[in-house]
């Protein structure tokens, strides 16, 4: 568990509401994530975890409430929004590597095209990042040629290449064969210990226990519990959290 | 713009004739296409070969060539396509006020050509049924024909509707060629007649004819879009 730097929080959600048609997916959610904090979001399927995660870089617009990132309200569109997104790294369940580009191109695309950095310098950094996530030797392959675990690590490197202020993870390991879950969690744990601000939706309770500062439990669009992991796992307050934990931890 | 009003009956007649051609050709193509599809998925290799050959021949040949064969090849062989003068059908041909064989020739060409695409649409429906469905049926002990009847066909039919619809839309558009092969009075030939022979202004005639075709194709296309969207959601 890493130390949380104090000061004003990096991400603040205030009374956020979101509907998909008649479905109330985020129901008055308020949450603040400090700099360097690692927050794990858990909850049953359909409870709104992904949606919560995606509102933070405005991949999903919200219906009411406010979200501020680094002191600024989220811009609605255009250049400002693109800039915000470039400061928030996102890792998806299904990796979403650009299928027609090599791993290295995937990692360098953002810095070169969005930040207009020099290709040569970016290349250096990208290779260093790929090395860090353990797939430097795969740099010139295409995503389809890699295993799931390797792809997900490449996706993390792609996000890191933008030198983001925070990282969002939406079930990063649940599309992986079980043998590959470990390697991805390892990279995430090391990121956490280096002080990256992270919001992680996951079912990996081991990761939540060891790497998170806080665990958030969601159900039916509501933020039901928010507690340090030790407390949460030892003694969930709500019946729903108890029920969910019993289902997920028994087998 | 006066043509549109003065010659409204001509446009309407053209529309009606085109519609009749399309209806008859659609029925014929669906029937023949189903037969070819059965051949194509039959377990007997020579029948499958015939089905495959049929599809490859007619799919890769311009309809124009098929039309030439029907309208000028059949007569060269001494046929007037009289075998199409079935009791019910004959009434339709005569009601159109013409017993010239070109209507039948155009019909034959459209049916032969479209059937190849109908076959492929039906087959794509069968292919769209997830293999797991047939496997599950087999592992319950269903025989081939039970599998087909209770599991595969009911589902493939749904998957075929949209591609079949596209084939029919294409066929409606293809029917325009009939007007250049002796069928007098359909929309396409009306366009030619009014502009070339009777010298009416081009733009209003073009608008009238276009509306005639769009009335048939656009709503059908919109319907297919809706079915497709609904199916995509249901999945």
């Amino acid at each position, binding site marked *: 568990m890493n130390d949380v730097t104090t000061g004003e929080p990096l991400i603040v959600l205030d009374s956020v509401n979101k509907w998909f048609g008649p479905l109330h997916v985020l129901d008055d959610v308020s949450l603040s994530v400090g700099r360097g904090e690692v927050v794990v979001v858990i909850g049953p399927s359909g409870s709104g975890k992904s949606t919560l995660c995606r509102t933070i870089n405005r991949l999903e617009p919200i219906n009411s409430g406010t979200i501020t990132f680094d002191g600024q309200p989220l811009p609605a569109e255009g250049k400002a929004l693109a800039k915000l997104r470039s400061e928030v790294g996102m890792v998806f369940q299904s990796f979403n590597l650009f299928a027609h580009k090599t791993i290295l191109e995937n990692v360098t695309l953002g810095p070169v095209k969005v930040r207009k950095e020099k290709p040569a310098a970016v290349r250096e950094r990208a290779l260093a990042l790929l090395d860090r996530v353990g797939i430097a030797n795969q740099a010139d392959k295409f995503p389809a040629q890699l295993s799931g675990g390797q792809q997900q690590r490449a996706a993390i490197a792609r996000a890191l290449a933008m030198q983001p202020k925070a990282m969002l993870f939406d079930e990063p390991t649940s599309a992986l064969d079980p043998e590959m879950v470990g390697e991805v969690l390892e990279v995430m744990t090391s990121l956490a210990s280096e002080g990256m601000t992270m919001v992680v939706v996951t079912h990996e309770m081991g990761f939540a226990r060891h790497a998170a500062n806080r665990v958030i439990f969601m159900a039916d669009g509501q933020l039901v519990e928010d507690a340090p992991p030790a407390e949460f796992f030892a003694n969930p307050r709500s019946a729903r959290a108890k029920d969910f934990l019993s289902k997920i931890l028994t087998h | 713009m006066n043509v549109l009003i003065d010659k409204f009956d001509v446009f309407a007649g053209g529309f009606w004739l085109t519609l009749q051609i399309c209806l008859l050709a659609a029925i014929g193509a669906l029937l023949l296409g189903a037969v070819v599809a059965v051949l194509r998925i039959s377990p007997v290799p020579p029948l499958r070969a015939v089905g495959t050959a049929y599809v490859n021949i007619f799919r890769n040949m311009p309809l124009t060539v098929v039309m030439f064969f029907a309208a000028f090849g059949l007569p060269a062989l001494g046929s007037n396509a009289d075998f199409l003068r079935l009791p019910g059908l004959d009434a339709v041909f005569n009601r159109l006020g013409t017993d010239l064989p070109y209507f039948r020739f155009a019909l034959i060409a459209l049916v032969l050509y479209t059937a190849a695409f109908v076959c492929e649409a039906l087959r794509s429906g069968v292919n769209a049924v997830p293999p797991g469905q047939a496997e599950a049926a087999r592992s319950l002990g269903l025989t081939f024909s039970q599998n087909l009847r209770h599991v595969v066909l009911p589902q493939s039919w749904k998957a075929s509707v949209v591609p079949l619809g596209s084939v029919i839309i294409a066929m409606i558009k293809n029917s325009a060629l009939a007007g250049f092969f002796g069928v007098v*009075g359909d929309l396409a030939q009306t366009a030619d007649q009014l502009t070339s022979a009777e010298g009416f202004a081009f733009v209003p005639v073009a608008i009238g004819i276009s509306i005639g075709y769009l009335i048939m194709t656009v709503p059908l296309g919109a319907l297919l879009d809706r079915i497709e969207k609904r199916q995509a959601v249901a999945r």
Partner: protein
Amino acid sequence: GGDDGSSEGTGAGSKSFAAGSTMERLNKAQAIKIGTKFDQPGFGQKGLSGKPEGFDVEVAKIIVKELGIPEDKIEWVEAPSKVREDVIVNGTVDLVAATYTINDKRKERIAFAGPYYEAGQNIMVKKDDTAITGPDSFKDGTKKVCSVTGSTPAETIKQYVKDVATQLVLFDTYDKCRDALKGGQVDAVTTDNVILLGYIAKDEASFKLAGDNFTKEPYGIGVKKEDTDFRNFINDTLEKAFNDGSWKKAWDDTAGKFGAELGAAPTVNRY
């Protein structure tokens, strides 16, 4: 055909024409586009050589030679009956020589030089057909007849048939009509006698004419309506050809072989 094509008298500036005239423009350009039929034996048919052959083609060549343009610089454009006025008006071609009957309706849009030949509408039937003897045979409403969209015979025959919808079949070219007759889809083809004679000559075993000509179809050269200079030039050229024998030679080499009469040279109609 005209084997004396590119001999003396051709080449840019080999002849002098009034400044600004069509003749001068064509001569300068050393190129000309001519609309003709590609499917009418004896008048304009594109054969295996890829070059059209026939009386219309030869007449056009005489005019082109007079313009000082070599024969191989001609671009032949297919001009089916229904598009002949259009291609002239639009400038797709410089002139049309395509069994083109001079009449007043057409003169509203274009102008005619000539005539250079006078044909007449007739009817072609199967060799063994005795029922059709002339246009009146269509009056009882049973016999079907084929012609071509945008031709004068197609209009004329409408006065003889009982029901246009069931009796008259229109194609864009006459060869389709001939095939339809041969296949028995129609009972007759009607158009100018000389066109029909061309088909009969190629297949005497199958076809014959039924009766006599029942109209007069004077053939002209179609040009732009306002281009009186060019029309006069063509009229002069035609008259010259009538006199120097090249007109007769053109006929004898082509349609003349099919048994039609050339007759005396017609008088060109200057208007």
